[in-house]
């Protein structure tokens, strides 16, 4: 079974995420991810980005593109064999939903 190079490069991905979180803090609280197939059965990396309430509610238009571009600058997605997807949530929303994948 084919697995994308991203699966064996998770340390590199973790380091890249750390850089983005540092660069965009305090708006970006944390970034989690999962490597899996998307709806069209292509390999993808699904980023789950938790933002501060202020960033999510008032400045999503400003902050979200910075996160997307930041990750694209740090990671070579074609080389990793995955397509990136990004979903955002605020700290309060995650506190309400308590989803382990976002914690």
């Amino acid at each position, binding site marked *: 079974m084919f697995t994308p190079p991203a699966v064996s490069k998770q340390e590199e991905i973790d380091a890249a995420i750390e850089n983005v979180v540092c660069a965009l803090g305090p708006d970006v609280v944390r970034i989690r991810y999962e490597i899996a197939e998307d709806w069209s059965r292509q390999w993808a990396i699904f980023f789950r980005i938790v933002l501060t309430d202020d960033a999510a509610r008032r400045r*999503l238009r400003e902050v*979200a593109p910075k996160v997307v571009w930041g990750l694209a600058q740090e990671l070579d997605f*074609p080389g990793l064999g995955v*397509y990136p*997807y990004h979903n955002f949530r605020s700290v309060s929303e995650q506190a309400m939903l308590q989803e382990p994948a976002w914690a």
Partner: protein
Amino acid sequence: MGLADELLEDAHGLAEKGIADNRQSLMRRAISTAYYAMFHLFVEDFIEHWEFEDQRARLGRMFNHAEMRTGYKTKEKNNPTPLENELIDVITGFAQLQNDRQRADYDLGWGLVETDVRDSMRLAENVFVKWRSIRDEHIARHHLLSMFGASR
């Protein structure tokens, strides 16, 4: 106003009501409608250049959702031009919203929150604005052909 713009307006209405009422069904419809607004933006743009008006609807039905998510390779790998960056933003927004639409329509395990909906509206608006600013450029016209399914 074309269908794409009407759908985008509808998506905003659904989003606002869905958020205000905290109603999952409306939030899901908002994301799905935002995607279809964007889908029709590209289809309308493509078929309006077809000379034979009576064939345009038929031509539009040939668009395939999966094939429309096609990538773009910049001329210089690590140094895209500003125009290429605009096109990449359009492509990225399209793919993201397409995936979110699939989840909104079929993934009952997705507990949507306000930020999901607002981000989808942001993406759709962004695609509309950026596409309309570059649609007449050479790389955009070629990309639209690729979305239609024509290989390079």
